[in-house]
Structures are given as C-alpha cells and as structure tokens.
C-alpha cells in the first residue's frame, strides 16, 4: 500500500507540473501548424505569469489576473506575428528577442511597481485559484485503490488543471473538425493553396498566433495564480522550451502532446522524488540526468531514432507571393 501511495503522490505531482506544459505546447501547436515557428513560448508564458500576478495583486481578482495574462500574451504574440508574418523576419530571431524583452521587463517593472525583489505581492485567498474538491472525495478516500485515485488524483486540482486537459480534445476538435482548423493546417503546409482559394494567408496566420497567445496566457496564469501565490522572477525556468520539446516529441499532434507533457512532467516529478533516494537495481541516478532527460529524448527523436518528426512543410518560411 505504501508503494501505491507513492505512485499516487508521484502522479499527482506529475499532473501539477504538466499543466503549464500542456497549455504552452498546445499554444505552440496552433502557430507551428500554421507555419509560424515559435521559440518565444517561454517569454509569453513568463509575461503572462507576471501580468496575472501583478493584476491579481492590484485588483484582488483572480479573473482580472487571468484576463491580463491572456491580453499580455496575445500582445506579445502579435509582436511575433508582426515580425514574422507582416515583416517576414526570421521567426527564430523574433522568438529569441521576445524571450529576452520579457525576461528583462518583468523584473524591471515588477521592481518598479512592487519593490519586492522582482516578485509580485503574495496573493490571498480571493485573488488566486483554489483547488476544487469533488463530491464525497473525503469519504471515499478509504476505499482501496479507487479511493485514492478519485480523491487524490482526480479531485483536488485547480480549475485551470481541468481546463488544460479539456483543451486537448478541444484543440483537436478545432484543428480537425472546424473550417478554421482545416485552413490553419493548410496554411502551414502550402500557403499558396490557401491564397489561391481566396483566403488571406496573413490574417489566418495572425489568428493562429492569437490562439497561441491565449493558451500561453493560461499557462502563465497557472504558474502565478494557481501553482504559486504570485509571480517570482524567471518562474518559467525553461518550461517554454520543455513545452517546445514536447510539441516536437508529439510530432505536432494534440493527444500526443498531452502524453509527451505528462511524460516530461513525470520525469520532473520523479527527479524531485528521487533526490537522494537510490533506485532499486539502478542505484543513485543524478538528478541532473533526470532533468536533462526530456531534452535528450527530444534530441534522440529528432535524430530519427524513434520514429520521425516531420514538421509542417511551410514552417519557418514567410509567405511571399511568387510568379
């Protein structure tokens, strides 16, 4: 039973750390499927986390915080969109730039406005998300196996956690079952086909970029309004890049993204769990190896040793009408 308990705790923390990854990777899914590469997920998430923390602290409203997160993240997406869609600039360069601008300005503005060493003020009960407890969660906990799964694994998460997992089928549905999704996937493969069909390539890509902004907004808000009570400088700590890795690892497919994020989240949770505890048979695993594993796995996948990750064909290439 003790072992089972460990597993439940491990999975529970897996879910907790996977949520921002799922949001951010789905965000990347929308832009990259539309042919705009985005390594600025990190920056957007960070900007959103800051906006959420700051606004929630000032207004005392978690919803205002969430709204601010989404708006800021969309604004940053539009900057990326303007550079890479309208100005046809290098998408990688633009993403790098946004990451830096956000990393710097969240600290500068945070310090100027709140003077707490780059933090936003700690949020009280009303201005942050609370966990949701399912009905009878407490009374059924004692039931073997199913009890803890219901009470600890399924129940007791933040609203945004459920939203994240709901976003997986929703994103799938949008991409594969709506007109917008059809066009979005088409523009990432052959923008010429979209243009000659009388659809604006630019506006379509802008909409994809906005979708990305919304989802990154959720990711950031989760960090500062749910996972912790307030913004801490640099709190994304590379999650945007792990999400990017997960997106590639999932070969740009929604359900694979969820699995990849859960896998990477699990590795993260395991790394924390294993700190100082040797594994049976294997012995002591350096925690750094566990931390590096998502990146190593992605590199191995990219190298084509486990399947082949084929990115959208028009990805990274600005659209120019050709004669």
């Amino acid at each position, binding site marked *: 039973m003790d072992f089972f308990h460990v597993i439940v705790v491990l999975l529970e923390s897996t879910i907790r750390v996977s949520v921002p990854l799922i949001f951010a990777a789905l965000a990347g899914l929308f832009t990259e499927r539309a042919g705009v590469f985005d390594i600025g997920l990190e920056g957007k998430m960070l900007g959103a986390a800051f906006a959420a923390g700051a606004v929630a602290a000032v207004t005392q409203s978690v919803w205002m915080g969430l709204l601010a997160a989404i708006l800021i993240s969309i604004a940053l997406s539009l900057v990326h969109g303007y*550079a890479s869609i309208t*100005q046809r*600039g290098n998408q990688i*360069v633009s993403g790098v730039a*946004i990451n830096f*601008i956000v990393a710097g300005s969240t600290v500068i503005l945070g*310090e100027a406005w709140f003077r707490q060493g780059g933090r936003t003020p700690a949020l009280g009960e009303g201005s942050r998300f609370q966990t949701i407890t399912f009905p009878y969660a407490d009374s059924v906990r004692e039931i073997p196996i199913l009890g803890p799964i219901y009470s600890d694994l399924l129940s007791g998460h933040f609203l945004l956690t459920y939203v994240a997992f709901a976003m997986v089928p929703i994103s799938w549905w949008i991409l594969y079952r709506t007109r917008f999704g059809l066009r979005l996937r088409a523009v990432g493969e052959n923008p010429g086909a979209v243009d000659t069909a009388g659809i604006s390539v630019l506006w379509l890509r802008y909409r994809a970029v906005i979708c990305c902004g919304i989802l990154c907004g959720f990711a950031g808000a989760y960090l500062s309004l749910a996972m912790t009570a307030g913004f801490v400088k640099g709190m994304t700590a590379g999650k945007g890049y792990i999400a990017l890795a997960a997106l590639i690892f999932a070969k740009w497919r929604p359900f694979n993204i969820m699995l990849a994020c859960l896998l990477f989240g699990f590795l993260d949770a395991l790394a924390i769990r294993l700190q100082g505890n040797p594994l049976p048979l294997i012995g002591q695993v350096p925690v*750094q190896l566990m*931390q590096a594993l998502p*990146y190593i796995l992605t590199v191995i996948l990219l190298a084509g040793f486990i399947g082949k990750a084929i990115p959208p064909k028009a990805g990274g290439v600005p659209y120019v009408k050709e004669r």
Partner: protein
Amino acid sequence: MSTPYAKLPGWVEYGLIPLINLAVAFLVAGLVVLLVGENPLEAAYHLINGAFGRGEYLGFTLYYATTFIFTGLAVAVAFHAGLFNIGGEGQAYVGGIGVALACLWLDQTMPWFVVFPLAILGSAFFGAAWAFLPGWLQAKRGSHIVITTIMFNFIASSLMVYLLTRVLKPLGSMAPQTRTFAEGGQLPKLDWLLAIFGLNVGTAPFNVSFLLALVAAFCVWLLIWRTKLGYEMRTMGHSPSAARYAGMSESRITVITMMISGGLAGMMALNPIMGEQARMQLDFVQGAGFVGIAVALMGRSHPAGIIPAAVLFGMLYQGGAEISFEMPSISRDMIVIIQGLVILFAGALENMFRPAITRLFTMQSRRAAVVTQTKGA
C-alpha cells in the same frame, strides 16, 4: 520580382539602416525607463559615463566586450554557412571544462603563458565537441539545428551542474565551483594598454584574452573571405544546391562549421574563468551565448561589425551596472530588455524601415537626375 528591395548605397546598407534599427531599439528602451518613472536622458548619461567615464569603467566595458566578440563570432561563422547556432550558451559553458582542466593541471607549476595556450586549445576543443553533435545530427540525420542546439543548452546546463557539484568541486567545499587557481591559472591584465592612453584600469578584469578575441576576429575574417573552406561555407549558406553542384560536401561543411562555431563560443570561457574569477563557477556564461546572437545580427556577421557591436554590448553591461547603482529602480535587467530589443529591431524587423529609406533615396536620385537634365538642357 525576385528583388523586393532596390539597391542602396553601401553606407546606407551597412551604416544607416543598422543605426536606425539600433536607435529605435534604444528609443523603445527609453520608453521602458519612462514607464518606471525615471528620466531616460539621465539613464543614458549614466550609461555612457558608467561605460567610458574612467579607465576602470572602460576596462570593464572591454572585459565584457571580449566575451561578446567570441560569442558573436561563433554565431556569425554559423550564419555564413546558413546555420543558426543558438547553442553558443551551452558550448561556452562546456568550453569552460577545457579551461578548468588546463588550469587545475598546471597552474601551480607553470607560468600563465604556458597554461594559456593549453587552455585555449582545451576551451576550443570542448566547445567544438559540444557543437559537433548538433552539427552531425543535422548533417546525417536531418535534425533541425536550432532545436537541437536549444536542447543541448539545457543538457549542458545539467551536465555542468553535475560536474561542478560532484566532480570538479574540491573535497570538503560546499560551493559548486573549482578551487581557486594559482598564479599560473590567471591571465595578466592589459593595464599597459590603457596606460598608453593615460587611463588606469583599476580593478577591472580587462585581460589578454581581449587580444586573443581580436586575433580570433581577424582569423574569422580570413576564414570566411580568404580561404577555400570559407568560400565553401558561404556557397552553402547562400545556395545549398549550388554547393552540391560544385562538389562541396554539405555534411562535411555543416559539421566543420559547427565545430568552428562551437570552438569560438568555447573560447569565451577563457575570459571569465582565467581572466576574472580564477576559478570555474556555476553559470559563468550568464547569457553571453545569447548576446552573441544580437552582436552577430548587429554586426551583419562581419568581424568589422562584430567588434563595435560587442563593445556596444560591453557598454550596456558595464554602463547598465552603473545605472542600477545611480538609479536603483533600473536594475541590470534593463540590459536584457535592450538586448532583446536590439535582436528584435536589428534582426527580426531589420527590413521594417527599408522601404521608407529606399523611397527616400530613389526620390532623391530622381530629383538629382532631373537637376542634371535641366542643367544639360
């Protein structure tokens, strides 16, 4: 048609347009300063004064510039072959191993001028080795080099934490860093160089690796424009199909270019490790690998542009520290913003002002033509 922009005179192309992009980046940065309730002009004064006002300040500025010359050159070399090496950060970090090993081995028995060449080789070797795999994976397996180098940055970071906390740390010490090097592991300062201009370097760690950076810049120029390999790299960068036609091996060039690029990034480690701290610490790279992207973009991937761009960023780093001293609400993170803005305006938005400027120039030349015509008639 295929040429969207008309041809502009060289001084506009390589002088005016980059300057305008830079000016806009600084204007936006000034807005941020306004936003936090400070005076941008005052900040600019502190920035420039803090970077150049005294021999010591200048020494710090050039110390930072040294670092950025290396990482800027690293990015530029890869750009010429059409490769985006975003992994300078990790390569510089791993390059530190080479420096540390040379110093730990010989610092107590040999003078610096024996240790230094070995450290150069070591840093270049380790940096190149860290860049080799992404290069090889792109050449042979088709993995996108941007993504792999990003991944390698994180892997490098984990690797270095592991090494510094478990392997390279002296017994009994708590801090994740190597022991402090003896004299043989410390580079002499370039106080005499500033003294020529009547300046006192003070405590600034401005050291001989600056000269090495200048030599490296010259060597990169030689490599790109005066060697067969450089010719092949540029051919591949402009047109992979032409390179194939000319019988150049794409995979060979990719791997070699990445190794040169990684080697240059690795050499950056000499400056902080041997030139300043006399030991290898966690996170000694401090984002210099990414600054290299900004420097290479601003310097148009040409060593003659990279050196001033590196000095500019050196100025930001040093002057930025002074600003935060004088104006507490502007911390050193201001530099990070400016860096991002420069990457945005000099890189991703480099063509934003071009149409307007082109129009201006065609208008002017047309007017000039009319004037000569009327004169002729």
